[in-house]
């Protein structure tokens, strides 16, 4: 169901007409449109937005960790349409161990590195990604640095006992 705040947005309305089960929520805040998408529908939603709504560019994929909430991760997609000069943010809540979501590399090839980065930093697994391995951290690194339960100085060192 579309929240009342989004009834005004033509894009949200178009998505709703196309498939009513896709949009799980959203908001229009500080001039930016955010749509929460059901996790299973992310690939077809992106496909639809790219092909029918001219969102030919994927500006980036990232994630936010809301630990200790569950499901803890929010995977965030920033889409951009040059033709409409418009941006939209898609969000999917994912949880579990490992947290999994379908890869959108089939829709935009640029998603390749973006998803690898999210996997590397958060440990979110992208199903059907052609080569899901670490991109910034060394291959044998332990843990996923941008998780909220990962200490900023890493696991190797502890500053607890140090004085001064």
């Amino acid at each position, binding site marked *: 169901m579309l929240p009342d705040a989004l009834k005004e947005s033509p894009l949200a309305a178009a998505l709703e007409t196309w498939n009513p089960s896709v949009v799980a929520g959203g908001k229009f805040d500080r001039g*930016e449109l955010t749509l929460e998408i059901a996790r299973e529908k992310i690939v077809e939603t992106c496909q639809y937005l790219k092909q029918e709504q001219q969102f030919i560019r994927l500006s*980036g994929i990232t994630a936010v960790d809301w630990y200790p909430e569950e499901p803890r991760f929010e995977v965030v997609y*920033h889409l951009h349409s040059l033709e409409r000069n418009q941006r939209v943010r898609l969000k999917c809540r994912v949880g579990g161990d490992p947290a999994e979501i379908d890869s959108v590399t089939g829709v935009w*090839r640029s998603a390749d590195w*973006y998803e690898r980065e999210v996997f590397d930093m958060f440990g979110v697994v992208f199903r059907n990604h052609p080569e899901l391995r670490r991109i910034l951290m060394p291959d044998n690194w332990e843990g996923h640095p941008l998780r909220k339960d990962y200490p900023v100085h890493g696991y190797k060192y502890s500053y607890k006992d140090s004085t001064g």
Partner: protein
Amino acid sequence: MSEPAINGEPQAAPRRLALNMGPQHPSTHGVLRLMLELDGETIVKASSEIGYLHTGIEKQCEEKTYQQAVTLTDRIDYLAPLSNNLCYCLAVERLLGLEIPPFAQWMRVLLTEMTRLNSHLVWLGSHALDIGAMTVFLYCFREREDILRIFEMFSGQRMMTSYFRIGGLALEPPRGWQAVVKRFIEAFPSHVDEYEDLLTNNPIWMRRTKGVGRISLEDMLDLGVTGPMLRAAGLKWDTRKAEPYSSYEQFDYEIPTRRESDVYARYQVRIEEMRQSTRIVTQALEGMPAGPWKADAPKVVLPDREKMKTQMEALIHHFKIVTEGFGVPAGEVYQVIESPRGELGYYVVSDGTARPHRVHIHGPSFGNLQALPKMIEGQILADVVSTLGSVDFVLGDVDR
């Protein structure tokens, strides 16, 4: 690999050579590793390995107050620190709903365009040096030095300026800055002519760059490329025009485009961008509005020294901002600006506290580099160097 020929018989199977380029190769401009599969001199397959310069800036931002994190943004794209400062500050200011006075906005435009000149000069110098034109490098760094001196005059720092702060500028612009910037910007177009004299019609330069590193516009959009490379393929898209920020809509300038989408076209686009940036700086200099250089927001912006010494309230504000920072209303913002390399995006998520819950930096070099294999596959090895130069990536921006 098969056995070498013994009787001088040619071998049936083609021999492929795996070549490792970098991470310590001078033309990779930092620490980028390329793995090339060669058939003779032709590149059959290419892939790149990044992450050698990862410093965890996004993680560190979560540990700092909003104002402290400004200094980290300098270190991302170290050739365009002010663009990064600007993008981050704009994002946080939008979260705060803060209004920036016109003088500060124009000053930001002026200095960001100087940053574009600075960045393009380093690009041109090192790009030409890679291909063998050493003189250009020396000329470019001569002008770059002037720009860095101007930055030092404003902020006290040559490179890691941190001159834009949330709410305006870090310091009041120094007395007499107009004359210094004016002297530089009036002379600058003649310097661009000098670079062009050396390169634009130079037969060696043209042979090394024309028709090299071609890639179609569709491929680039699909692979996440932004900035001058798209404009060299004919797409007239510039965030400064499409989604104006910091009063860019009040300036008069053109977006240069070319159609060929090769290394030479990217060179032409960036040279023209330097001329257009010069126009913007000149306009900013001539029409600079009067007014304060920081916003009137006592809970966010540090008070004047004089007030702090005489007014109790200002002293309390100063103490609070310095010790615990300021709370930012919960919400999220994705701010996009046109950095010298393309679309630079900062995604800042606030949970209402004085420290950002998440800062994601989408550097233009990250997307641009992804298209590199597509550009060099099928080319000869020597062209990799000129193609790499034309992408103009900064590894700090890729690895963050």
